[in-house]
């Protein structure tokens, strides 16, 4: 399932990583944010929307370790951030898509406004397609269901595919095999 998803997702320009557990994933994210030059200045923030993955994570010490990383999200900060991190609920192998209930405004802000969207997802939640995920999602209790498939793109000028229009220019997907106590 994972390999299938990876092929599809990479075909639409997503970057796909997989880690055994939360500690490894956190490690990677820390390194990633530092490498991307996240700092405590406009245009360089990293915003992390609350999600089960963060349960038990020491946010204060992470913020201290990575200046510019913030867990309190506002519209202005989102507009000024370089990286946004959120958790997604399902991955679909047939189209390489991620799916989540994004009714929470923080989830939408961090996955729309920043240049890079880092999406965390449990490896257990890979499904094979729309039919399967439609059984799991319910508009009756999710006001905003989002499907995200790769970074934002356009071909509106001379049909030339260009990545990164209004939404993120990069989509970095992080699979975690063992979500530990976060689920």
């Amino acid at each position, binding site marked *: 399932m994972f390999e299938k998803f990876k092929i599809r997702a990479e075909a639409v320009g997503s970057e796909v990583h997989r880690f055994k557990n939360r500690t490894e994933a956190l490690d990677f994210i820390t390194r990633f944010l530092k490498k991307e030059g996240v700092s405590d200045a406009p245009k360089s923030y990293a915003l992390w929307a609350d999600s089960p993955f963060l349960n038990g994570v020491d946010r204060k010490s992470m913020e201290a370790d990575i200046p510019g990383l913030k867990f309190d999200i506002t*519209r202005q900060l989102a507009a000024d951030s370089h990286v946004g991190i959120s958790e997604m609920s399902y991955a679909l192998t047939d*189209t390489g898509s991620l799916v989540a209930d994004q*009714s929470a405004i923080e989830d939408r802000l961090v996955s729309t406004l920043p240049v890079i969207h880092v999406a965390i997802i449990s490896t257990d939640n890979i499904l094979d397609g729309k039919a399967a995920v439609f059984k799991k999602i319910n508009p009756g209790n999710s006001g905003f269901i989002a499907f995200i498939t790769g970074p*934002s793109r*356009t071909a*509106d*000028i001379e049909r030339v595919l260009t990545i*990164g*229009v209004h939404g993120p220019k990069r989509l970095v997907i992080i699979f975690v095999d063992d979500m530990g106590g976060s689920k």
Partner: protein
Amino acid sequence: MKKKFKDSIFTAVNNPILTGALGKFSEAYKINRAKAYEGIDFEALRQNIADRKAYAATHLDALAAAFKINAEAKGAKVFKANSAEEAVDYILKVAKDNNVKTVVKSKSMASEEIHLNKHLEDMGVSVRETDLGEWIIQLAGQKPSHMVMPAIHMTKEEVSDLFSKEIDERLSNDIPQLVEVARNELRSKFLEADMGISGGNLAVAETGSIVLVSNEGNARMVTMLPKIHIALVGIEKFVEKFEDVIPILTALPRSATAQLLTSYVSIITGATPNTDGTMKDLHIVLMDNKRTEMANDAKFAQAMQCIRCGSCLNVCPIFRLVGGHVFGSTYTGGIGTILTAWFEQLQNSEDIQGLCIQCGNCKEICPGKLDIPEMILEIRRRLVVDKGQSIAQKAIFSVVNNRKMFHAMLRTASIGSKPFTKGNYIRHLPFFLSDLTEGRSLPAIAAVPFRDEFKKIKQPKCSEKIAFYSGCLIDFAYPKMGIDLVKILNRAGYEVVYPQDQTCCGAPARYNGAYEVAANNAVDNIKALLREDVKYVVSACPTCTVALNHEFIGTFESLGQTEHMEDAKKLAAKTIDFSVLAKMLVDEGRIKLKEGQKLGKVTYHDSCHLKRTLKVSEQPREVLIRAGYEIEEMFECDMCCGMGGSYSMKQSQILKIPELQ
């Protein structure tokens, strides 16, 4: 044809940028689309979509009521606008009541349909399109030329000029840089806007949800950042159940842009939180604007099954040459012609409907299973009923309905080496034949028509007979084909009869909406061809074969004529295309071909009617191979050749383009 319309065609086909871009795109599109559909049973998928959409179209009121209850239970305000005016008034009122100064829009064809931007701007509201293509169009002060790719007709140089002016800085022609400019410019607009306006790709009655499909991320911004969101949704977007979304989401991106899924799909149900913690002021405007009327028309109800993928434009040989602006309306291409006739008025489709050459490409790929060519013919028929025919056409068709006179005209046309001099009355008469001689390397009218040549042929006596229907083209332009056909059938042991009373197959009249004329042609031919008891009626002109096989019946049905129906069916059952017959005779061993012949390479060009209506493409190739030819397939072997049957009569500007010849 109005002069303005003629001029716009001329401008379009002589615009190398436009024809180049559209040509390149439609070539790539076919390949990419096929790839995107790999592993999917397209026929089953589109039947599924057609069924679900057809259900919605016959339950519009119930679905609207359910949608309203379900969406309002989740905090949305739902307004049913019967007309364009009602939709505009409602939206303007919401803007006014909330003191809206700035609006950001994501793509909405429905808003184009009601000229919403202009109404808002007249009220002093600044409106910004945010879909890149739409923004380009807005800056250029134009209309979208394609429903999925609004700016497909513009070059990067033109875009660079527009953007340079907008940001007051000289930009290069580098596309990624231009996209970056759009990102930066529009970002502040999203953040500042008081109101966001979107369309909706689907409206789900059972949940009150709207579904938005986009690639750029602007729809997410438009629905998230401003505190007011208005979704303007045509009621053709209804589906009943949430699960109905699945097949449409499967087909829409594949058909529209050959993607497996667009970057973003958003399913919005009711009000969601704003960035400041308040709840969104969500208004959903369900717009009818003649859609119910269309759904209630037996011939056009199927148009409600359209999912607005735009693929009918992408495969249209005419669209690829003239682009969208020739259509002069919001909706372009084949489906646009139909929607214009309904949402605006029948008369507005008068010029554009004439662009359709009935090639059938769109019908094959439409995920909503619409028969666009048939609906366009119906528009033609109604226009003729409404307005009558033009004097020139009337003259032509009165001649066509009088076989003796018609054939006398054609004979006259052959006299002299330059029969069709300009300004000569007769040049306008034998409809498609007149234009054949103009700007094309086709032979003029033959000195002796086949009907006369036939009398000179000595045939062996055979026990079985086949009637030959020559059609005007073989009769008067290519008699040699008819002579060869007789020889071949004689070799297979058939005697050929040629009923001299046969006449024009009626396709030209039918394709021009003159159904009465076509019906008269049909009756004459049925009588002539059924007079003698023959095994088959063979035709070597696919357009005629289609007429004999399908259209006589269709014409009678449309006119409610039953008198000759049974005979029409009898004739249809006997009619056979020559290449199919030839293949059969070779298989049966009635025609013997020398083994091991090496006759060299040929290529085969499929005829629109033979391939798509009669579904014949293998037989002619097999016969050629069996005879000893090697077939080397040409690029786009089934692309329209430019004959367009009787199309030539009205749109010679398009057909004279080298690409089509």
